[in-house]
């Protein structure tokens, strides 16, 4: 199997500028693969898949009767980001997360951005992610979004855009770490030959980020990851992170609030917990404050949080900044709080709340992607060029019924990376989600999750919609042509 006939077609291809012309950062890898015997790649692929299955790196799909867990499909051809591109991404993402955090703090406190007329009060308050219960709240160190994932895409010209922000417990980082572990076994010689930035210390940095939220006077703090339990689609990740950090994995039933302090039930009685990295949505966190039917949460935890007796990451209410309608104002938000222009541009976004923009979306629906303002996982979205007339009509009705809940974006022709299809390579569309930790400073994990739409021509990369993943390699410095040859495994 080789790349001789691989055709990048009319897209931005991350590997080839044209057939037979690899970009400098992938040259060594391409040369290596081209040198393989017939079955070599297939063998590597097989053993990588076996490793995933055995490690139990899985995700759950809701509404699927075919058993609870699935292996996240994985392609062993990595996505490679060169150092220059990464530098740009890193600066852009840091700037963005910094500004979004200031925005959340402002919205729940002074609301200067509203008073100064940049955003309208009604617009903010009408977001379902706005939490009235968080008004006047000052979380420890004024950090709200401790862990975020910023979804990036590349258009036909290679320009990076932010597609959406994920500030409510974004998942997927365990796949990044798992992918890397498997890839190191799969391509040891390539790893030796390329300056790939390591990602192993993510768990350690996450632990530091959480530790940062409590006074140093507490010498042995208890930190817990709050999971909805083993039937949650991201359970593997919760347990993996707890294991890697050496912290407690807790469920709602393990916690109890007494005198506004949160305790864990242990075999030796109750033990105080100081920080909770919660992987449960706001609505389920505390049945006494939010959804009263929630069995996943901990009654009384919000009161404890407000009193500063327990720290939580991400802070409840942080989701206001990833409302997809508010997303369209992020460049203004960045400008307002930092005085800088946004480094990473947004995908042009039409807010259906606005009559003129709404009409534009409806008139051009066959060329637009329409999403709900706060959905995730690719559920309930419409991709114009791949939709039927009926689907378009239904969507227009939805928009007219609930305009605040929808946004439209022109279809981006996502960049492509080769994947193995049977006995040859084909280009498939990808996005990139770098993970950001906000602790003492802002850290961006070099690489992040590259999701790939495994269906031909599909632009939807979500795992719940038939997407897979690839390991993402960020180069320490860019390739200079040398005569170094890759050694054999």
């Amino acid at each position, binding site marked *: 199997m080789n790349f001789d006939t691989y055709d990048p077609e009319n897209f931005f291809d991350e590997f080839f500028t044209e057939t037979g012309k690899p970009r400098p950062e992938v040259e060594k890898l391409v040369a290596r693969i081209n040198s393989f015997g017939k079955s070599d790649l297939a063998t590597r692929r097989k053993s990588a898949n076996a490793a995933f*299955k055995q490690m139990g790196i899985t995700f759950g799909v809701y509404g699927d009767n075919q058993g609870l867990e699935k292996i996240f499909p994985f392609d062993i051809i990595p996505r490679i980001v060169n150092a220059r591109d990464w530098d740009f991404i890193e600066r852009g993402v840091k700037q963005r997360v910094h500004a979004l955090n200031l925005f959340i703090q402002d919205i729940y406190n002074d609301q200067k951005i509203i008073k100064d007329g940049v955003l309208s009060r009604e617009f903010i308050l009408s977001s379902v992610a706005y939490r009235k219960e968080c008004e006047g709240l000052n979380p420890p160190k004024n950090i709200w979004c401790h862990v975020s994932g910023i979804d990036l895409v590349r258009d036909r010209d290679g320009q990076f855009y932010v597609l959406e922000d994920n500030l409510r417990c974004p998942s997927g980082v365990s796949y990044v770490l798992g992918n890397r572990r498997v890839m190191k076994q799969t391509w040891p010689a390539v790893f030796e030959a390329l300056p790939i930035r390591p990602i192993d210390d993510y768990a350690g940095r996450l632990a530091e980020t959480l530790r940062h939220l409590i006074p140093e006077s507490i010498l042995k703090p208890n930190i817990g990851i709050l999971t909805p*339990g083993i039937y949650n689609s991201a*359970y593997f990740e919760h347990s993996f992170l707890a294991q890697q950090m050496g912290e407690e994995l807790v*469920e709602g039933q393990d916690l109890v609030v007494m005198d506004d302090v949160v305790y864990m039930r242990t075999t*030796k009685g109750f033990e105080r917990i100081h920080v909770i990295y919660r992987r449960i949505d706001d609505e389920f966190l505390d049945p006494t404050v939010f959804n009263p039917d929630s069995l996943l949460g901990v009654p009384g935890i919000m009161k404890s949080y407000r009193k500063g007796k327990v720290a939580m990451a991400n802070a409840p209410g942080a989701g206001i900044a990833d409302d997809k309608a508010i997303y369209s104002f992020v460049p203004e938000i960045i400008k307002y709080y930092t005085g800088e222009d946004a480094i990473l541009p947004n995908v042009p976004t039409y807010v259906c709340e606005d009559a003129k923009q709404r009409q534009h979306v409806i008139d051009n629906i066959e060329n637009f992607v329409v999403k709900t303002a706060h959905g995730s996982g690719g559920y309930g979205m419409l991709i114009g060029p791949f939709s039927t007339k009926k689907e378009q009509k239904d969507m227009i009705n939805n928009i007219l019924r609930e305009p605040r809940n929808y946004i439209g974006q022109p279809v981006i022709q996502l960049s492509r990376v080769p994947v193995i299809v049977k006995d040859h390579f084909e280009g498939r569309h990808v996005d990139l989600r770098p993970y950001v930790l906000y602790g003492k400073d802002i850290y961006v994990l070099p690489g992040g999750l590259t999701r790939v739409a495994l269906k031909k021509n599909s632009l939807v990369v979500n795992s719940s919609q038939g997407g897979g993943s690839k390991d993402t390699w960020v180069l320490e410095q860019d390739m200079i042509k040398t005569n170094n040859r890759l050694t054999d495994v």
Partner: protein
Amino acid sequence: MLSRVANSLYWMNRYLERAENTARLIESQLHMLLDLPTMRQDPNAWKPLVDITGDYQYFSENYKGYSRENVMFFHTFDRNYPHSIISCLTAARENARSVREIIPSEMWENINNLYLTIVEPGSIQDAAKTPYKFYLNIKMACHLITGIAYSTMSHGEAWNFSELGRLLERADKTSRILDVKYFIILPRIDYVGSSLDSVQWTALLKSTSSLEMYRKRFNLISSKNIVDFLVFDREFPRSIRYCIYHAERAFFNISGTPFGVYDNDLARQFGKLTGKLNYSHIDEVMAVGVHQFLDEIQSDLNQVSSVIHDNFFAIKSVAEINQSGVQIQ
């Protein structure tokens, strides 16, 4: 340690031990029948394997006759029967999954692997075609998991809860196997001393993996010595006394009270049970009747299990919440 976690560790190990014991039981039955051509024709040859479980009612309602296929399916692949190997491994894996961050990765991977082997569509054919290999693999996989835990897990609280679960389950299984087999083999006076007799007793020892160790202590097969060995032996790790003694040690390690201080309910329950095993002699057991003695032991074991539950895991564990209902004693 979280109560829920302790509960999952305890049950994960109980279920694994249960699956292993079932695999061993079937394996020894298969071997025994190879040596007993006449019994192979007996339509009830596999019946004792159902009797051991105490669930003959379920069996008779769901199966027609005690054929080898039926009994093997019942014990191995029946998802509706909570003690079948597949149900035990499913529950063990669910529990393991909920404590993945506590147990060594290799342990999880092997539990997961074992589970995946059994649920694979082809495994029913494998069991029918090459049953010896099939059950041996299950047994060895369980040993591997226990071995990984033994040599790579800190012998702290999590380990002690695991031990507690494994040893109590093993004591229970040994007592059940002994009870039923003894009852079946013994009354047939005409067999005493015959080769048939010794084949059956040998199979009993094999089904608890104790034949070789037994021979080292007693050489000759005799029913009394076998009971003595499986109930009272100090050193054999599947004898009831050994299991209870070490389960009690694990409990004292968890509670942190000095060994031998019986100042709480569970310690007293354990004390009674060890007392019974320490201060009874095989002759007394033979005098009151093996069945009655084992019956008492089993009810004491149940008592201990229920006090453990009240003491340490007052809240429900993962596998209890799922559709399969409560964890089965």
